């Protein structure tokens, strides 16, 4: 009975969404003329190569035009890690180590992950360092690095994340991000203002503060995600 009612309700919601989406033509160009931008999308596409020298427009948006969102986003992740820590907080006895996995993994997996781990780290670093040139960036790279650590945690019973290091990396990366913003405020009167020379497009060193911020974001995301995983994995099993 309740099922029927809910399906009925959802049918209405679905109809509503379908009707509203049917007004939005798929694949239509809503951005308008790029030379005289009326929409933000067009503006970003037309201005990015010239004014920021960043090849990846999305990176330009995420880090520069809407860098403030990204700062918020990084804080959300930071908050999630903190909140997770506080919700699952448990006083640990000194020196107590809670194994992340019960049974030791197979030797093959252990050896394999040991091999692949540095490669993952390098991949992650590559992704966020080249965030302004190619697809990818701080979030993706950070997530990839966290996956690497996850792999280690899963395969080695005794693998522990060094909490102190995580905290340091996390904090320093966050501080870097916020400080770069504040320097912009001091130097150019606008928070997160791009105060460095922008260089030439498609160079590794181009885009002013954008790569810097993305690297900071990468470290921060990596540290936070690893922290989250570590917190979750070290819950004492029932």
């Amino acid at each position, binding site marked *: 009975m309740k099922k029927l009612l809910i399906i009925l309700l959802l049918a209405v919601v679905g109809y509503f969404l379908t009707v509203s989406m049917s007004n939005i033509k798929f694949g239509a160009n809503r951005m308008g003329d790029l030379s005289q931008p009326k929409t933000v999308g067009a503006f970003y596409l037309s201005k990015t190569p010239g004014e920021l020298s960043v090849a990846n427009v999305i990176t330009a948006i995420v880090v520069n035009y*809407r860098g403030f969102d990204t700062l918020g986003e990084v804080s959300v992740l930071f908050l999630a890690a903190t909140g997770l820590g506080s919700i699952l907080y448990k006083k640990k006895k000194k020196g107590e180590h809670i194994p992340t996995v019960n049974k030791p993994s197979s030797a093959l997996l252990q050896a394999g992950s040991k091999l692949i781990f540095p490669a993952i780290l390098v991949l992650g670093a590559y992704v966020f360092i080249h965030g302004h040139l190619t697809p990818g960036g701080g979030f993706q790279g950070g997530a990839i690095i966290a996956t690497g650590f996850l792999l280690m945690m899963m395969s080695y019973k005794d693998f522990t994340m060094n909490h102190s290091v995580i905290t340091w990396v996390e904090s320093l990366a966050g501080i870097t991000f916020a400080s770069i913003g504040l320097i912009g405020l001091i130097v150019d009167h606008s928070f997160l203002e791009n105060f460095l020379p922008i260089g030439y497009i498609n160079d590794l060193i181009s885009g002013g503060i954008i790569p810097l911020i993305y690297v900071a974001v990468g470290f921060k995301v990596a540290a936070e995600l690893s922290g989250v995983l570590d917190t979750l994995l070290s819950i004492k099993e029932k």
Partner: protein
Amino acid sequence: MVISPVHYIAVPLLAAFLMPLLAKIHRELTRIVPGLVILYLGYVSVVLMNQVMAHGTIVEVIAGWNAPWGINLVYSPFTGFLASMMTAMAFVIWLYSYRFKKVDSQPALKYFILFMMLVTGTIGIVLTGDIFNFFVFLEITAISSYSLTAFYRDRDGAEAAFKYLLIGSFASAFILIAILLLYTQVGTLNMAQIAVRMHDVPTHMKITILILFLVGLGIEAEMFPLNGWAPDAYSQAPSPVGVTFAALVVKAGVYGLIRIIFTLFDVHGAYEYLIVMGAITLVMAELAAIRQKSLKRMLAYSSIGQMGVVMIAFGIGTNEAVFGAIFLMFNHAVIKGLLFMSGSYLVYNTPNKEIQYLSGYGMKMPLISLFFSLGALAIVGLPPFAGFWSKLYILIAAADNQMIGLIALILGVSIVEIVYYFRVVGRLYFGKPSKGSIMQKPTYGGVIAMSLLAIVILVVGFYPDVITPYIHNAADALLDKAQYIHSVLPNADLSQIQNLK
């Protein structure tokens, strides 16, 4: 460094990132630093409010991209007033939670980080001039609220937090869809630009988007059928967090709602919707409050009910009504803050925080009981306390609009409110003291915090003019849509803008 609105966001964020390191230096720093940061924000508020009162709205551009291309913060008399109010309340709450015993037995570092980010999130919601940035700050607020609700890690805290999270996720989903649809229609995320282009949007799309916003933000603003999470979250969160919900978070939700209705959209019926839903919220919440056993839950319902009055007043939409509404928001923050703070000390050691155990606490905890009674007198709008003036303004505005039935409703519900508040006050002073109840001595910070709020209640009650000039400016700023758009987008074409009220 020039003082600018972005300090409200950047400085607490910087401090939050710094705090894990500071904790390694000295544990006490984690408790002190948030206070210093909020104190600094208070200074920023004073400076900026003076500027705003003298020269009008400040628009701060982020990353050097002028509106509508980049994100901007709008520090108008209205948003500035709310931000300053939130900062002040945050400082009081910080004082209250400093060395708050129950919080202190938990990881204080995490508590203060979450608390500071909660404050930042709410202030960000109010200040931002970008709709997606609004969403991001909403999420910051939401995640820190969820975590703080479950901060005690007891059974009911987790339950309340999960309910909040479930409904809160709905809210973010709806708001996201609304932003998405809005973007397809206007091709921008800047609120002023959206307001300018709104008249080109077909009406049915407007309504569709508006509905999604109304449901999403209604959840944050605790509108009636959407507020099931609120009583649980208020009552199970640590007391300082309960205060924060009442004083900051719900204000941010209401702000979002009225910003959408007043500035972004020009749809007929939205104001009437606010009135009707506000009235329903008011009635449902206050009537549910009267049967509550738990003090904090009762306060939570009362808080929801007051938000209903705020919505009604905004829905009336005349300058006087908006003035009353903003005044009530201020009063509610202060008074409900005092009630939550004193109330939670009263029920500190009682089983299930129930009212029936409070008999005779007036003798045992005279100061706290006095604060509670003062709050109770003020919140039901008895003169000469702060709550009276806002109520009077709202009623006058309603009467000028010939809404006599509505006034009767508000007043009728106020009687209910009087009943349940005075029941508690009567019990506090005149019940026979129960044996063996252990009193909790409040911290010095707590006493100072409560005294500050009590003084504000008395001062505003006896001499409302200390606050009314700011509120008048705020009301004017909120209602003057063209002025808002002009200050953000100086070159915008204002001819098409409709002001429905």
